[in-house]
């Protein structure tokens, strides 16, 4: 491949990432800002308008209580995105701490990683429903359950990277000039973990939105009165035969958001780690 086509290829790749990032930003902006500006009530019930097909008045149709679906998707985005962001940030923080400790201190490695192994032997969604059923169904308990599910995944990735970084020359050099362990962890190892951690952050964000929808579908997620993309599908389920759009549009919102997040995650990995560009 000549250098020019290589450059074009990379630009093409970057452009896809750019489009995904812009799309993601607009979804987030719409979901976060629109409800503040609008005085429409997404829970306003209009029984006469129930289960209307998509039209000029209702772009995405109406649900079983006559609520405008397009409005509810925008409102639901707030909660779905909130759950995704909170889960991603908290599990990345917890997983990084655990992975860093396991990777850096040999004594802690076996105990931490055996617990991580044990937790990862449960299928995600099964652990999720069990935890939510114990904690009780509320928005923050769903987040907590998902954080418990995804923390081991981050811990495993961070540990693997820490094991490599720990052996690098600059860590030896830092130790040789008398830098203490806390500072080595904080100033020398942590910054080098940023690339794998950022990638995990975007992927867990996507998984969390998908998992929330799955939990709501099973009836053990966020309470149905909070509009998330998951609860919207769950509540319209029995009308799927007559009003197909009630499940299609919230699903499209989930897919679009999760897809953009993964494209951005992949792009971040390529940008931050040129070595990976060639192989994966």
């Amino acid at each position: 491949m000549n250098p020019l086509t290589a450059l074009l290829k990379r630009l093409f790749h970057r452009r896809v990432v750019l489009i995904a990032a812009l799309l993601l930003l607009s979804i987030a902006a719409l979901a976060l800002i629109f409800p503040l500006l609008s005085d429409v009530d997404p829970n306003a019930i209009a029984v006469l308008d129930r289960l209307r097909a998509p039209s000029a008045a209702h772009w995405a149709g109406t649900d079983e209580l006559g609520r405008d679906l397009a409005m509810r998707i925008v409102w639901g985005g707030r909660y779905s995105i909130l759950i995704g962001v909170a889960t991603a940030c908290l599990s990345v923080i917890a997983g990084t701490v655990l992975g860093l400790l396991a990777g850096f201190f040999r004594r802690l490695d076996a105990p931490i990683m055996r617990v991580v192994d044990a937790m990862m032997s449960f299928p995600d969604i099964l652990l999720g429903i069990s935890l939510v059923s114990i904690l009780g169904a509320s928005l923050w308990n769903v987040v907590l359950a998902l954080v418990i599910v995804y923390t081991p995944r981050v811990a495993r990735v961070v540990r693997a990277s820490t094991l490599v970084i720990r052996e690098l020359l600059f860590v030896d050099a830092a130790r040789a000039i008398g830098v203490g362990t806390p500072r080595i962890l904080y100033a020398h190892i942590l910054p080098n973990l940023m690339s794998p951690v950022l990638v995990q952050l975007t992927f867990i964000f996507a998984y969390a939105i998908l998992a929330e929808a799955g939990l709501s579908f099973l009836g053990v997620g966020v309470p149905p009165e909070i509009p998330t993309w998951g609860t919207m599908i769950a509540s319209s389920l029995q009308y799927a035969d007559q009003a197909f759009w009630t499940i299609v549009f919230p699903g499209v919102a989930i897919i679009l958001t999760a897809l953009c997040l993964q494209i951005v995650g992949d792009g971040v990995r390529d940008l931050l780690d040129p070595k990976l560009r060639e192989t994966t």
Partner: protein
Amino acid sequence: MFRFLLKRLGGTLCVLLLVAVMVFALTRLASGDPIALLLGDQASAEDIAQVRVQYGLDQPLLSQFGYWVKEVAQGNLGNSIFLQRPVTQALAERAEPTSFLALFAVAIAALIGIPCGLIAAVWRGRLVDQILSAVAMLGASVPSFWMGLILIQIFAVKLGWFPASGYGNPGVSLIERLHHLVLPAVVLGVLNSALIIRFTRASVLDILNEDYVRTARSKGLSERVVILKHVLRNALVPIVTVVGLTTALMIGGAVVTETVFNLPGVGNLVVRAVLRRDYPVIQGALLVIAAIYVLINLLIDLIYMLVDPRIRV
């Protein structure tokens, strides 16, 4: 080699014990009294207390755990509070749809994932690679219940090719039962193929850089022989691991798909148990599912040790 084996077995036992502790702790930390749920609003406090004693729920936690582990070691997972039968029996009744579904789905996932991953790796950076990578990413972004609902609408409601739900009446032929599994298996298979595409691609790309691939090419072997005999065979080792682990995860991870299609499988059993706080069933099912995963993991490692001498060192 013997030391490695011992260490690996010790680690596995340790993980299994931790799994048991977690499963036990999980259900005992729960709020909500299953006995009160079972007996309903009319039950008096004495009735509840009596049934609690009957199920051993009045003992201290540690002795409950000790008793439970001892029973589990003898293959007894206790009795379901709601189903009025042993948990092992309830699991055994549900095992068939779940294991058939897992095998069926993994076959679909591997048949899509391995060829697509290979093609993407061989034509790396070309349009076909970009399309396949995009499709793989899309597959990882679709909620399984949503895809299930869409397929039901199209292939069951509109076209009527496949049943929308269930596993047929008891005693129907195997063909009939498999017919019920087609749509759920397609959902799980297609969505899980995304992971296998990515993994195959990465694994094949690794092998393509090896010296022996260059040697094979410089010997004048045709590209087809190089890819199929030298690259794919070596790349297959990690791919088989992923396929194996995917199968293991599907046994309990198909909860959502089983619920969409109303399949009487293990996942469905757990969801119902969770909604009714049927502790013994939740415990037993989680334990068995996690143990299967851990043991498949161990089995894969042991097979590698036998097959690949490099790992033993």
